[in-house]
């Protein structure tokens, strides 16, 4: 069947901000879909609130709306654009849910828009667990026994039939939020209560436990003619009980016989038919009882997913792109396989390598969070690795995580280590309860000589995998036993082929990495590269998508062209996410346009950068010195010049920069020495002093004693942090000597090579972020001055900000521009530079300068319409700013607010208060003609529903009382009822504001917590009251979060909220595309 001709304009819905469970995989799928639709000559309208995405680049769609993903905003987009169809299957659960909401609100019917890719009926069968089970039973597919509950009593009734452990799944929540596994009645009640409140429909599914069963996923596709293919099978090493996003997984499935596999495939075909996904991709999860092979289906996602991104990268089959084409009415056999060129997409990829994915968690950011892994996803990113064997892929995946010392699998219990004295009981516990650290426990148990039978009993990990781990442990033991001097070529070859990195061997042998590499090269043991070709070499591949391995034959075939190797940012983590992948992609796009051959190195399967379409040559490899230098060496053999871009991928490539340069690899743009100068507190202070630019008093310390000295000389409060970190890792504001000592004891362990930086903390200062581009001639343009909404002390990544500034004076703006230019020139920046400033008592201070891509680059690029990362990439290869047509600082039309989103809802018991350590996972942007409306839209996009009326609860510390008065007055004028704790209320009343008194949590009942739970409060303004009442505050903030009530913890944030509410009331909600904004800015 040829393409449908009745669809001309399609609205693609994105997935919104990066949150746990929904990361940049949907940028990848959305980008692919937009490209595929436009290739077909369709007009594409995109809506996505996340500016840090490639998909929201204005050239990827005809009109791009960076607007909140709410019914109200999207209805406006639909009303303006009148699309023929909506594609809701490439924007994750967010897009699917929004499609259902639009349907229920009557919007689809009103504007006569059709859903393509998945129908409302199909979405409902797949999403509604009861309907799904009925559907499965009707086609003879087995499901776990289960019951629905809409109350605690109904839930308890169900648990009597099912017994324990029991699984609790709230309906319609993303990534299993609010669910869990209960092993007893008490736990059961607690999880059910939470789940009921978190489910938007107040409904739970209580399910028979299949914990410990083997877990599989099939990524399948179907076209309008009922042709069906399986793209990839995935096996979870962590058996049932751990969310698949938190599981270490492997592709292809490795422990299924053909009969079992084909039975699963047959079931999958029936399932996609029955659910009614007429075209596109779906993910289907199965559990298999290891004792008797009983197979049940767990769930089905009628859309592209995290796993389908993984499957696309694992096989080379671009699921999202093909899904978009199928939605237009194409059949699978009418679409070509890009990689082989000659064969159609109507086939099942087969692979001749093994792929392992390992999640990356961020528990170090949430020390009080429960690290137990359950059916609710907790990881923030993932690394994928490809090897010829499972062992090789597994070790490569673990080194891709970049966990440093804590990532080492071998010799964990060496003398002096944390596990030296771990007793058997503790180890048993570490194996029995799945946590983010369980795999390391498996290797400790193997080194302790525990049998795989024993480890299997505790972990239920399949014996096949455990045997592989045992073989790895034995190899490590052998290497350790023979020692460096007697390490023979045969053993070296065997361990390299098993995936050991030089640095692993160095650790086992007690020598340095360079000596291992030298020894390896003596024996001609070098990486060769194999291609990912969808067909196990049955056909020729035309796409240089490669992975490294130690085999006889290398298929890299480097060309003689001049090339640029762009080092990516590795697994997503808090502080280093999508924004950096965005920058890396832009570097590749720009340099490809300039005639360079672009080579990408990255190991994050969720990204656009690891799409074989994005670059000329893709190496899916870990970002370590060994792996990267091997790639550069191989590329050089083609004959052309090879240079590296290290300033776009966050800390990951920067950590390698000096070492790469030392071995003679050319680094493009700002020199690694300048980068080091900016990072080195002492050198940088000296530079600022010479330039006469004010900076906060600061110092450095290597010991607690030194730290005390520095702190007393500059005066408390101080900001402390280790050098060379991103995302404010281990950064803290310290108010006294006691806390300083405590911090130093923990932090110095953290990074012995680098000192601790101590800065004077500028309390209540206004913070400013600047992104600039500087060229080789010393020209500098300011991309934007971004004013933070929250005052200093909150990590810039966690603070909302606005461009252009709405409160800053012209005088200070001029000073900031001047300082930025001078610093950029002094640092000889060639490329991007991010600088942070603070304004206190009318003085502009430089806080820090980083001559590299920053988190705000994509946001600023979307606001200004100028792709700063591309401009800077061109600068790096010698094109001046003037040559590119940039002679003035950039301007924007309207206001653009960036607001972060946080993962607190995933971590019960964790405080939601913000500080210098970054905790947000993603961001949204709101744009409008006024600051108030832009802020309101950003809040909406972030899921903070600022009320238009109702009751506001105010409780602020004494310092903040004078400044809260105008805010309270503003709210009163807007008609809000004001509720306050005694102290605040008395103060407000004294200033003529009518405030009602409510009990604090420890004062009696009903207290403020009750009022929040009873939904008598619509907005919380609560600034921290100091240590004593810490827990009281915390309870208020958590209660608000769980009820979905916005809780604002800074006065500047509260003031912004008041302007937002005022603006939305006055102006209403309107939408406007980026293309229109950019037109206005140019016009």
């Amino acid at each position: 069947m040829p393409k449908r001709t009745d669809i001309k304009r399609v609205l693609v819905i994105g997935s919104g901000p990066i949150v746990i469970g929904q990361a940049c995989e949907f940028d990848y799928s959305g980008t692919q879909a937009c490209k595929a639709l436009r290739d077909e000559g369709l007009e594409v309208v995109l809506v996505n609130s996340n500016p840090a995405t490639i998909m929201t680049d204005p050239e990827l769609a005809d009109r791009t709306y960076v607007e909140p993903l709410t019914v109200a905003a999207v209805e406006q987009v639909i009303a303006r654009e009148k699309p023929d169809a909506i594609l809701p299957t490439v924007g994750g659960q967010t897009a699917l849910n929004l499609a259902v909401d639009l349907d229920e609100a009557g919007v689809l019917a009103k504007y006569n828009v059709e859903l393509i890719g998945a129908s409302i009926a199909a979405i409902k069968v797949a999403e509604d667990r009861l309907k799904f089970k009925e559907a499965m039973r009707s086609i003879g597919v087995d499901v776990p026994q289960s019951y629905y509950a809409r109350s605690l009593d109904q839930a308890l009734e169900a648990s009597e039939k099912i017994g324990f452990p029991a699984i609790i799944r709230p309906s319609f929540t993303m990534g299993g939020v609010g669910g869990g596994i209960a092993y007893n009645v008490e736990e059961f009640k607690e999880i059910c209560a939470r789940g009921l409140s978190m489910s938007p429909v107040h409904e739970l599914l209580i399910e028979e436990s299949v914990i410990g069963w083997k877990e599989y996923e099939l990524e399948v596709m179907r076209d309008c003619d009922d042709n069906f293919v399986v793209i990839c099978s995935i096996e979870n090493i962590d058996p049932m009980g751990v969310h698949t996003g938190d599981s270490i997984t492997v592709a292809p499935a490795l422990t299924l016989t053909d009969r079992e596999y084909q039975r699963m495939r047959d079931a999958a075909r029936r399932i996609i038919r029955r659910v009614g996904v007429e075209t596109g991709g779906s993910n289907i999860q199965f559990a298999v009882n290891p004792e008797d092979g009983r197979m049940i289906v767990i769930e089905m996602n009628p859309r592209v997913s995290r796993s389908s991104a993984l499957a696309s990268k694992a096989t080379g089959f671009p699921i999202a792109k093909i899904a978009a084409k199928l939605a237009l009415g194409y059949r699978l056999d009418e679409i070509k396989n890009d990689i082989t060129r000659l064969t159609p997409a109507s086939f099942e990829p087969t692979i001749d390598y093994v792929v392992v994915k390992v999640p990356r968690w961020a528990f170090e950011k949430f020390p009080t969070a429960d690290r137990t892994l359950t059916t609710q996803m907790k990881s923030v990113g993932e690394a994928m690795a490809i090897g010829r064997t499972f062992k090789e892929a597994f070790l490569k995946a673990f080194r891709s995580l970049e966990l440093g010392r804590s990532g080492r699998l071998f010799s964990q219990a060496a003398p002096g280590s944390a596990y030296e004295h771990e007793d058997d009981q503790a180890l048993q516990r570490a194996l029995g309860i799945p946590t983010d650290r369980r795999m390391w426990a498996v290797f400790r148990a193997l080194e302790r000589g525990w049998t795989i039978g024993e480890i299997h009993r505790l972990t239920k990990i399949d014996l096949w995998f455990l045997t592989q781990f045992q073989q790895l442990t034995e190899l490590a033991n052998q290497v350790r036993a023979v020692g460096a001097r007697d390490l023979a070529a045969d053993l070296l070859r065997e361990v390299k082929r098993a995936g050991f990195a030089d640095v692993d061997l160095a650790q086992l042998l007690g020598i340095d990495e360079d000596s291992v590499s030298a020894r390896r090269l003596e024996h001609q043991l070098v990486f060769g590269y194999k291609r990912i070709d969808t067909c196990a070499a049955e056909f020729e591949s035309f796409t240089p998508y490669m992975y490294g391995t130690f085999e006889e034959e290398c298929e890299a075939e480097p060309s003689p062209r001049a090339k640029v190797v762009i080092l990516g940012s590795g697994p997503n983590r808090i502080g280093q996410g999508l924004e950096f992948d965005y920058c890396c992609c832009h570097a590749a796009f720009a340099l490809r346009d300039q005639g360079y051959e672009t080579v990408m190195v990255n190991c994050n399967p969720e990204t656009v950068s690891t799409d074989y379409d994005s670059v000329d040559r893709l190496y899916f490899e870990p970002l370590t010195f060994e792996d990267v230098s091997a790639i550069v060496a191989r590329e050089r053999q083609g004959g052309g010049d090879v240079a590296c871009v290290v300033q776009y991928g966050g800390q990951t490539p920067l950590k390698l920069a000096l070492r790469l340069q030392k071995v003679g690899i050319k680094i493009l743009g700002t020199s690694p020495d300048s980068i080091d100068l900016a990072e080195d507190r002492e050198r940088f202070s000296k530079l600022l002093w010479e330039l006469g630019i004010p900076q906060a008093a600061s110092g450095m310390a290597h010991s607690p004693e030194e730290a005390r000295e520095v702190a007393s000389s500059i005066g408390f409060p101080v900001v402390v942090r280790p050098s060379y970190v991103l995302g404010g890792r281990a950064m803290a504001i310290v108010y006294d000597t006691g806390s300083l000592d405590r911090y130093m004891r923990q932090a110095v362990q953290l990074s012995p090579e680098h000192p601790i930086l101590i800065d004077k903390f500028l309390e209540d200062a206004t913070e400013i972020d600047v992104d600039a581009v500087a060229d080789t001639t010393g020209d500098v343009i300011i991309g934007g001055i971004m004013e933070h909404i929250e005052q200093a002390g909150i990590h810039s990544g966690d603070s909302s900000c606005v461009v252009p500034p709405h409160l800053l004076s012209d005088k200070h703006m001029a000073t900031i521009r001047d300082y930025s230019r001078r610093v950029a020139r002094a640092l000889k920046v060639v490329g991007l530079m991010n600088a942070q400033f603070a304004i206190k008592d009318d003085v502009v201070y430089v806080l820090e300068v980083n001559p590299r891509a920053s988190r705000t680059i994509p946001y600023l690029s979307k606001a200004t319409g100028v792709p700063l990362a591309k401009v800077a990439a061109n600068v790096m290869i010698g094109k001046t700013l003037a040559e590119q047509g940039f002679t003035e600082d950039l301007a924007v039309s309207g206001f653009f607010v960036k607001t972060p989103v946080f993962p607190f809802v995933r971590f019960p018991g964790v405080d939601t208060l913000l500080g210098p350590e970054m905790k947000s996972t993603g961001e949204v942007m709101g744009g409008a003609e006024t600051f108030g409306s832009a802020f309101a839209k950003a809040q909406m996009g972030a899921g903070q529903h600022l009320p238009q009326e109702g009751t506001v609860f105010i409780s602020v510390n004494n310092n903040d009382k004078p400044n809260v008065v105008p805010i309270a007055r503003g709210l009163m004028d807007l008609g809000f009822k004001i509720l306050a704790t005694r102290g605040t209320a008395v103060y407000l009343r004294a200033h003529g504001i009518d405030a009602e008194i409510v009990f604090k949590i420890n004062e009696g009942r009903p207290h403020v917590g009750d009022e929040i739970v009873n939904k008598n409060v619509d907005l919380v303004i609560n600034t921290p009251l100091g240590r004593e009442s810490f827990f009281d505050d915390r309870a208020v903030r958590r209660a608000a979060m769980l009820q979905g009530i916005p809780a604002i913890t800074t006065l500047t944030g509260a003031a912004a909220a008041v302007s937002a509410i005022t603006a939305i009331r006055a102006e209403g909600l309107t939408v406007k595309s980026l293309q229109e904004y950019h037109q206005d800015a140019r016009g």
Partner: protein
Amino acid sequence: MDAVLALENGRCFRGRSVGASSDAAGEVVFNTSLTGYQEVLTDPSYAGQIVTMTCPEIGNYGVSGDDGESRAPQVSGFIIRSESPIASNWRAEGTLREYLVRHGIVAIADIDTRALTRTLRTAGAMRGVIATGTIPKTSELVERARALPSMEGADLVRGVTCAEAFDWPSTNGITEFDEFVSMDPAPGRRLRVAAYDFGMKWNILRRLTAHGCDVRVFPATAPASELLAIKPDGVFLSNGPGDPAVLDYAIANTRVLVDSGVPVFGICLGHQILGLAMGAKTYKLKFGHRGGNHPVKDLSSGRIEITSQNHGFAIDPATVPDDVEVTHLNLYDGTVEGMRHRTRPVFCVQYHPEAAPGPHDADYLFAQFVRAMTQKA
């Protein structure tokens, strides 16, 4: 123990012996299935061939008595990248290595199977030798490979067909794993099928049985009259090894069957023999089709089936006579995958609707055979 694979083009791969301690010789081919190594090992169509699995991890789930496609492994030798030391599956009855050693199958592991596959893809299937233990000079092994008879012109059927006719037990049909294979309603009575065993996979018999047929299996050399003597509702021509063009006796017998008016269904070698009997010609493919992911288009419905494949020869479409219609095409390379006689109840496919290993997409062909037989009756 060391092992070496030597190819006729002089290329050698050094690895480790993971099967019987002996030597092996044959045509080296590759199979791209991700699962089903035991079914591959026991498929009689691989007689005379050394099979390379492109999937790198082999042996993971061991071997099971239920998963054989014949009594014992049929391959001449086996090549894999990484051998599993254990068998991890609830149905496993032993490890792959135990199985290979017990049946005297030579196998080599730890070689660059992708490099080997690329060699076979570009140069075509090649003769080769695996030596284990004390390895002679590689030049000597290469010479031995070059001295092997070519697959073209080889009648390998006589080596794998049954010695005498037998009835396939009517209970040996449905397994618990077939629960999702859709079947037409069973015919009112059990049908009688006479089958030529050119090296038949047992799953064909299991599927025919499941579709309501009682099957009597005949040796490849049995005259057509013997099959017709049991008054079959239909005749089945099985898969098998080697060059179809030299099987004069089978082609002649098949001609008799086609002319008899009885419904005939052929698979793989059976398809090629039918083609030859009806007047078409066969030729040898460069490196053949072996795997479980080839898309085949049913030209009558336009539907795509993902198929199980194992063949080195194919029907030349230019030689297909006018009274025969090509019904299925391979979407990878456009080769003929199925044919039908325009006036007689005769049809056949090049691929394997019985799967084992591979997808079940083409099971409908057994139902089609049953329909042909019931309509005829």
